[in-house]
């Protein structure tokens, strides 16, 4: 059961602001402000704007956490608060944390590499390692909230957020834990990270910020780096009932496969991705799926192969299901992407509105499904799936359903 969520995104410092902007078709992409991008070929990103850690965290906690972990902390605190989950001596060992990160504390590492080179090993910060390690997102939430069940990270590139939710869901389903605080966080808008992504050829070279992320459009030419954190509270039905929690929606399935093909390119046929969709929908009829939140990165390869995967998994039904890409507005929040997109699925189910895929102006014959172009649409959605794929051939899909209260 999903009983709470929180998020810090390029479209807002909480879920409600983010959702409102998504429905309105607002783009969170702009020129890079976090570093001087003069010498960079790509000068745009979807940055989290107006985020001051001091608004949420004491000075020591803020300073001892890399930006990605700050996002995780704030989104985690929001989620736990929204779930009305009081952590105390009666339950602290029954709750776990699993907030993944695609790259961890890249900024901290880059900064201390400079110190190492210019001032030598005895001047490297004792906080480098605790700030850099990707599991610090989970650990810091555990420390802050007094949660003593398992806490660990998980990394599967851009599928991280979805895999974290999927694993948390399974841990609860198997009866290992009553509740999990799960999601993803990344803050990779740093010079070295950016240079690396640019060189890998995956980023859009479009320097018109709000037009650059254009999933499924003929003129798409790469993704836009985003950042942020998104966290959900998942718990068993028994525990949610026991503490009389408000149930927002229900995770009903999770599937994960690998392309076994290439380190950055997806398998063109979408075969393994289709298999992940099928696994997530075990026991669900294809015609019961009312919405697909696409991975939809805006890279030429992803959007074409994802379309093939959807067709393979759904057959002719594929043409009838509304599909949209939140990345057209949020950019690619990396490890947080799957988690914010799961939150979007919850909102779609509860609000009856499907946010659009913006910048879809020139249809691509290879992408011929219903991507809800440019304008939000009303929709009665009972079951939604969220696709996440990642460098390394990860295909992860989570299925979320309306909770009817039976």
């Amino acid at each position: 059961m999903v009983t709470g969520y929180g998020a810090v995104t390029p479209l807002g410092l909480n879920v409600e602001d983010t959702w409102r902007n998504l429905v309105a078709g607002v783009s969170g992409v702009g020129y890079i402000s976090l570093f001087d991008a003069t010498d960079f070929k790509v000068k745009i990103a979807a940055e989290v704007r107006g985020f001051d850690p001091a608004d949420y965290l004491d000075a020591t906690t803020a300073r001892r956490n890399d930006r990605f972990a700050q996002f995780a902390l704030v989104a985690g605190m929001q989620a736990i608060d929204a779930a009305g989950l009081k952590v105390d001596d009666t339950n602290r060992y029954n709750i776990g944390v699993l907030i993944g990160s695609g790259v961890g504390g890249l900024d901290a590492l880059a900064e201390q590499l400079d110190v190492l080179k210019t001032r030598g090993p005895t001047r490297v910060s004792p906080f480098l390692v605790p700030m850099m390690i990707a599991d610090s997102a989970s650990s810091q939430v555990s420390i802050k909230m007094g949660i003593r069940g398992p806490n660990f990270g998980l990394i599967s590139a851009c599928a991280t957020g979805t895999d974290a939710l999927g694993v948390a869901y399974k841990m609860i389903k198997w009866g290992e834990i009553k509740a999990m605080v799960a999601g993803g966080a990344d803050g990779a808008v740093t010079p070295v990270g950016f240079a690396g992504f640019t060189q890998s050829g995956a980023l859009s070279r479009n320097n018109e910020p709000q037009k650059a992320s254009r999933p499924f459009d003929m003129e798409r030419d790469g993704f836009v780096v985003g950042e942020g954190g998104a966290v959900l509270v998942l718990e068993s039905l028994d525990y949610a009932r026991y503490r009389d929690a408000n149930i927002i929606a229900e995770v009903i399935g999770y599937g994960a496969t690998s392309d076994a093909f290439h380190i950055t390119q997806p398998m063109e046929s979408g075969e393994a991705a289709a298999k992940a969709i099928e696994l997530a929908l075990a026991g669900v009829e294809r015609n019961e799926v009312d919405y697909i939140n696409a991975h939809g990165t805006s890279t030429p390869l992803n959007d074409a192969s994802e379309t093939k995967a959807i067709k393979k998994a759904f057959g002719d039904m594929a043409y009838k299901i509304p599909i949209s890409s939140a990345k057209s507005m949020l950019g690619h929040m990396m490890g947080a992407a799957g988690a914010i997109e799961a939150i979007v699925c919850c909102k779609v189910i509860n609000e009856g509105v499907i946010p659009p895929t913006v910048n879809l102006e020139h249809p691509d014959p290879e992408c011929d499904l219903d991507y809800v172009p440019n304008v939000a649409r009303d929709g009665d959605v009972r079951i939604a799936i969220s696709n996440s794929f990642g460098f390394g051939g990860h295909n992860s899909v989570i299925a979320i359903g309306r909770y009817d209260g039976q």
Partner: protein
Amino acid sequence: MMDVFEEVKKALCKANPGLDESKVVSGALLKDDLDIDSLDLVEVAMTLEDVFSLTLPEDEMENIATVGDIVSVIEARLKVKSG
């Protein structure tokens, strides 16, 4: 000559920006009174090494419990240096 205590106080406040300066007295316990843990102490030592242009031996830093202990280690080192 630099006031060792004042420099130690500055380094402690830098390591813990939320620190109430009036609490930084010679007998104050680093961990219990000032919320300075072992990682902070490494940072404090690095700051002070730069300020006084000296090296603080790890074994001497390990036994430090109070603000006064840090001051003593530095004063001893400065004496070795000038002597």
